[in-house]
């Protein structure tokens, strides 16, 4: 896949980690010299995906959430948000705007719609443990990336 730089974060499904995850991913992506709008798009999409894990994947007890980010020389960013939670019964339906399994909790059901409009591609799959993998990618506009490889690389 030719990633010039990759990182993996793993943390417990506490809601306080949503802010940590989106800020950490944004900070990692800064080396590709994105615009402020692009960084905000990525932060929002990561926040939606991690929130889904906190609220839906682990509704009763806390579990692990893994966020992987891969950066390409072509200024493409690939992101995976992985959980080992309860899964989603109907993957197609989960992506529909305004669909929520928790309407009584004032939930908008717009998480996947937001991810889809802030990123270029969003894929939703079951992982082998029964949880969910959300794969997203975004290609940054034509702007010169900062040099990643230092002299000691």
């Amino acid at each position, binding site marked *: 896949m030719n990633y010039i730089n990759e990182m993996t974060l793993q943390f417990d499904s506490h809601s306080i980690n*949503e*802010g940590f995850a989106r800020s950490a991913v944004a900070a990692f992506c800064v080396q590709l010299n994105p615009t402020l*709008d692009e960084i905000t798009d990525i*932060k929002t999409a990561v926040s*939606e995906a991690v*929130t889904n894990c906190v609220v839906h994947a682990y509704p009763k007890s806390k579990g692990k959430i893994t966020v992987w980010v891969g950066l390409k020389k072509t200024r493409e960013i690939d992101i995976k948000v992985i959980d080992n939670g309860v899964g989603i019964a109907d993957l197609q339906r989960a992506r529909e705007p305004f669909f929520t399994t928790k309407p009584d909790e*004032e*939930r908008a059901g717009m998480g996947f719609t*937001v991810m889809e*409009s802030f990123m270029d591609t969003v894929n939703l799959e079951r992982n082998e443990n029964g949880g969910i993998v959300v794969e997203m990618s975004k290609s940054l506009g034509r702007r010169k990336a900062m040099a990643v490889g230092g002299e000691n690389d």
Partner: protein
Amino acid sequence: MQVNAKVYMDTLYLSIAGELDEHTAHYARSAMDNQLDSAEFKQVIIDLSKLDFMDSTGIGVLIGRYKKLKQRNTPVFISNPSAQADKIFKMTALYDVMPKIN
């Protein structure tokens, strides 16, 4: 996350500051409801100029307050959304029920 409130000329101004996500939604909801249930006003303006970040959890919080105010026939407006919040509001047609004002 902070919610500041003031009443001026029959208008309740609610200013939401900080980051509105799943972690802060509960606090934002109860802080706003405290004001909605205690202050005297004829309309509500939610000022987002100090909101640093919001995801779709924020939409749920705002729609919940809209529903509450609709029962009392009290109009509610959004002011000063960031470009990112504006994008989410347009996507979810929030402005149909909470129009944007300057």
